[in-house]
C-alpha cells in the first residue's frame, strides 16, 4: 500500500540534488560561495520569466510572447532615454506598453477565444515587429547617459548578494504571495483546475485570464529591466533565440503541468536551480556550448522519462488533448 510515489517535482528535485552533490564533490571551484552566487545570478532572469510563465500555465494557458515582452518595452525604455526623454517618462511608457500588450493577449485568449499558443505566438511576433519597425534604430539598444541608478536593478550587490538574485527573490515572494494569499490567485488556480466549474461557480473567468496575461507581460517586462540593467544594453534580437523554450522547460520540468492548476512558485525555483546547476557546472568544465545543450537535453529527457515510469499514464486516465 505505502508505495514510494514520487511526483515529478520530487524527481526533478532528486536529479538536481544528485547533480549538485556530484558537482560539489568532483568539480573544484563549484561549491564555493562565489560560484553559488554566480550560478544563481546567471539564471535569475530565466527564473523571473519562469514565474511569469507559471502564472499563465497555472491557468491552463501558455505565453510564447514572453520574450517579446521581455525585449521590447525595456528596449523602448533604453531607446527613449537615448533620445533624450526622462527616465521616469520612459519607464512609465515602457510599463504602459507592457500593460497594453498583456491586455491584448488576454483579450484575444479570453474573449476572442483564440488558443493561447497561437494567440501569443502571433502577438509576440507583432510586438517584436513593432519594436523592430518603429521603435529601435538598431536592434541592440545601448545604454546611455540618463540611465543612472537604473543599472542597480541588475548590477552590483546588496550585502554581497548580487542584485539579480535579489530581484528574483523579490519576484518569487511577490508571485507566491499573489498566488497563495490573494483572491485572484485562488481564482487562477480554480480556473486552471476546472475552467467550467470556475465559470459556473461565478468566478469572472475571462477578466482573470486577462489578468494572468497582463501579469505575465509585466513580469516579463521587469525581467527585461533586470536583464538590460545587468548587461548595460537590450539586445532585442533575443526574440529570435530559443530562450522561450528554456522558460517553458523551467516551468514544466519544475512540475507545473501544462494542464493547469498544479504547482507553484517552488516548482519554478526547482526548475531554475536544475538548469542553473547544469549550465554552471558545464561552463566550469569548459564543455562547449553545443555539448552543453546536448547534455542538458539528455538530462532533462531522463528526468521526464523517469517521471513517466513512476507516474504512468494509461488510456483510461489520459486526458484528451493533453499535449
Amino acid at each position, binding site marked *: 500500500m505505502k508505495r514510494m510515489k514520487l511526483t515529478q517535482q520530487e524527481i526533478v528535485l532528486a536529479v538536481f540534488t544528485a547533480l549538485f552533490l556530484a558537482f560539489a564533490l568532483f568539480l573544484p571551484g563549484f561549491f564555493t560561495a562565489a560560484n553559488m552566487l554566480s550560478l544563481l545570478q546567471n539564471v535569475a532572469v530565466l527564473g523571473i520569466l519562469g514565474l511569469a510563465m507559471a502564472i499563465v500555465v497555472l491557468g491552463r494557458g501558455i505565453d510564447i510572447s514572453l520574450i517579446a515582452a521581455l525585449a521590447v518595452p525595456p528596449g523602448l525604455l533604453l531607446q527613449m532615454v537615448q533620445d533624450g526623454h526622462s527616465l521616469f517618462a520612459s519607464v512609465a511608457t515602457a510599463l504602459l506598453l507592457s500593460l497594453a500588450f498583456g491586455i491584448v493577449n488576454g483579450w484575444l485568449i479570453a474573449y476572442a477565444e483564440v488558443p493561447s499558443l497561437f494567440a501569443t*505566438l502571433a502577438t509576440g511576433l507583432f510586438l517584436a515587429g513593432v519594436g523592430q519597425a518603429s521603435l529601435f534604430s538598431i536592434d541592440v539598444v545601448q545604454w546611455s547617459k540618463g540611465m543612472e541608478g537604473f543599472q542597480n536593478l541588475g548590477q552590483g550587490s546588496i550585502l554581497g548578494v548580487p542584485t539579480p538574485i535579489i530581484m528574483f527573490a523579490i519576484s518569487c515572494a511577490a508571485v507566491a504571495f499573489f498566488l497563495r494569499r490573494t483572491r485572484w490567485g485562488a481564482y487562477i488556480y480554480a480556473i486552471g483546475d476546472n475552467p467550467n466549474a470556475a465559470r459556473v461557480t461565478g468566478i469572472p473567468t475571462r477578466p482573470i485570464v486577462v489578468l494572468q496575461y497582463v501579469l505575465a507581460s509585466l513580469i516579463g517586462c521587469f525581467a527585461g529591466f533586470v536583464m538590460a540593467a545587468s548587461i548595460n544594453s537590450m539586445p532585442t534580437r533575443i526574440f529570435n533565440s530559443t530562450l522561450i523554450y528554456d522558460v517553458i522547460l523551467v516551468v514544466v520540468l519544475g512540475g507545473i503541468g501544462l494542464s493547469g492548476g498544479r504547482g507553484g512558485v517552488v516548482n519554478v525555483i526547482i526548475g531554475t536551480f536544475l538548469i542553473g546547476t547544469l549550465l554552471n557546472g558545464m561552463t566550469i568544465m569548459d564543455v562547449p556550448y553545443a555539448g552543453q545543450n546536448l547534455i542538458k537535453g539528455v538530462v532533462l529527457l531522463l528526468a521526464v522519462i523517469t517521471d513517466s515510469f513512476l507516474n504512468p499514464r494509461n488510456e483510461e486516465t489520459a486526458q484528451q488533448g493533453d499535449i
Partner: protein
Amino acid sequence: MRETFTRWRYQYWPHHLLGETLSKRWTETAIPVIVLLIVGFVLSRTIDNFLSPTNLADTARQASEIGFIGLGEALVVIVGGIDLSVGSMFALTDFCALYTLNVLNWPVPAAAAATIVCGAALGAINGFLIGYLKLRAFITTLITLIIYRSAFDLLIQRYSNQIAAAFPDFPSWNFLGGGDALGVPSVAIAYLAVAIFGHLFLTRLRPGWHITAIGGSRRSAYNSGVPVRRMIALSYVACGALTAIGALFFAARLGTVGGDIGVGLEVIVLTATVLGGITLGGGKGSVTKSAVGVLIVLLITNGLTTMNARGGINRMALASILLVAAVIDIRWLKNRTRIISKVYVAPTYHYLPPPPPTEVGMGGPFEQNDRLREVDLIGLGRIEAPEDVILDRNDNLYAGSRHGDVIRFLAPDYQQMEIFAHIGGQPLGMAFDRNDNLYICIGGMGLYRIAPNGDVEKATDETNRSMTSVNDDSRLRLADDLDITDGGLVFFSEATIRYEMDEWPIDGLEARGNGRIICYDTNTGKTHTALRGLKFPNGVCVASDGQSILFAETFGCSVKRYWFEGPKKGAIEVVMDNLPGYPDNINLASDGNYWLALVGMRSPVLDLAWRMPGFRTRMAKRLPVDEWLFPNLNTGCVVKFNERGEILESLWDFKGANHPMITSMREHRGFLYLGGIANNRIGRYRLDGADPSFVQYDRRWGRA
C-alpha cells in the same frame, strides 16, 4: 408583378445550394481558403511579376519543401500531439543528405534513402517516447528539439568545411533541387503526389482513420480496438520522414548546412498548421488545410520581403493577418452548424390554381361521400403504419409496419397475422415480380427483395451520382413506391434527396423538386436515375401500354406519365394536375383504369404560403420545427381515373372515423384493400360490379 418577380427569383436562383454547400465538410476550410485568395489577389496587384511562371515556380519550390514538413506536423497534430522538433530534424536530415553525398560520396538514390531513413529514425525516437513511454508530446519534442539541434551543431562544426568544399554535380541531384517538368518544379510534383496520397490516406485508409480516431478521442479509439500506441509512434515516424523529404529537396536546392538552418521552422510550420484550421488537440484536419496554411504564411512573408518591407513591418503584417484569420475562423467554426440549420431549408415558389371543389353539394367528380364508411377492418390495433398493401396470387395480404417488418395476413379471413420478414427501416411501396418475389421500397434503405420463402435480399441501395448536385445523391434516402415492367425493370420513386426519411415533411414545406424516379434493372442489377427534379414523387404504376409509367407527384398535386421505351421514349406528359389533394400511390383497377390515393386535402393556407417563399423562409428560421406549416395529411380519398386524366369516381370516408387516412389501395378479386401510413388497420372495401376474379399479376402476366 411582384409575384412574377418572386417566381423568377425562386425559379432561377439556387437558394438550396447555399445550405447544401455549407453542409459539405470541406467548407470548414472556407476561411483559410478565402484568406489565401485575398492574400494572393493583393500580392498579385502589388508585385509586378508575382504571377510570372518563374516566380510562381520559385514560390512553389519553397512552399513544397515546407509543405512536406507541414504534412508531417498536421499528421502529428491530428493524432493529438505536437512536434516542436521538426526544425531540428530538418537541420539534421539536411546535414545527412549533404554528408552522405558530399563527404561519403554516395550515389544520389542512396543518399536520398539514407536521408529519409535518418528522418524516420529521428521521428521514431519522438514516437517511441510519446507513443510507447507515453511522455507528453509538448515537453518531449521540446527536449528533442534541443538535443537534435545541439547534435547538428556538433556535426557541422566537424564537417561543414568538407561539405562546403564540394559542389556535387549529378543530373538527378540538380533535378531534385532545381528541375521541373512542364514548368512545374520537381519538388512541387513530389509534394502534390504525397498530398494526394495523404488525403486518401487520412480519409479512406485504415491507418488514417485510426489516426483521426485517436486524435478525436484517445479513449474511444482504444476501446474500439485501435492500436493507439503504435499509431501514435508511427505518426511521429511519418512526421520525421516527411520532414526529411522536405530537407532533401532543400539540400538539393541550396546545398547548405549553415548554422541556422531550420531554426524557428517549428514556429512557421505550427503557425501554418493552426492557421489552416487544424486544431491543436487533435482529431480534425486535412491535407488541404495544411497546404492552405503553409501557402498563406509563405506568400505573406515572401511577398512582403519582395515589397521591400523591412523585417519589422513584415512581422507586424504577418501577425495581424494570422490573428484576424484565426479570430474569424474560430467564429466561423463555432457557428457553422448553426448557420447551416438556419439556411438549409430553402422554400421555393410553388403556384397551384384554386382546387376543384370537394364539398358535398358542389358537384364535380371529387364530391365527398361516405362510401368508405362501410369498410371492413383488418388487423385493427395489431399493425402500425401500413403504408402500402399488396396481395399475392394466393390471396394473402401483405403490409409493411413502422418497425421494419413485412406482415402477412393469411387468406381467407385475414385474422391470422405473421411476420413474413424483418428488414428494418420503413417498408413503403410493394410489388410482386413474375416469380412472386416481393420487391419493397424501404424508406431509409432502398429497394429490397423478399423471396417467397421469406429470405430477404438487398436489390439496390445506390444509384449513380449526378454531377450537378452538391449533395451526394447516390445514397437512397426515401425510396417510396414502385412497379415492375414486363421487361423486368423496377421503376421506383425517391421522394426527396435533400432530407432524411424522418424529415420528409420539411420537403413539403420547401416544395422544391427534390425527388426522382430511379430504375433498377433486375436483369443486370444496375441502377440509374431516370427522372429528377420532381416534387415528391410517390406512386408509380406501369401504364397499359407497357412502355410508360404513371407517377404521382405528391406536392405537385399532379399525375404524370413517362415513356421509358417505345416511340415516345423519354417523353413526359401531364395526365392530371391541380388535384384537390396530395396524390400518393397509383394502382391498376380491374376495368383497366387506375386507382389513386389522395393522402390529404389541400388547404388554402398552405396554397397561399406556397406562393410566398419569403414567408416560409422566415418561418423556418424563427419557429421551432413543430410549429411550422406543413401539408396536412389527414382525411383523404380514393379516386379512379383513366389514362386521359378523367376522374371516374371517388370514394370517401368523409368523417375519417373508420379509415382515417389513405396512402394506398389495391384491388383484388372484387375488393379494394386500403393502407394508410398513420393508421393501425387495413381497410377492405367491396367494390360493386368489379371483376371478382381480378388479380393484378394474372392480368398482366397471366396465371403462373
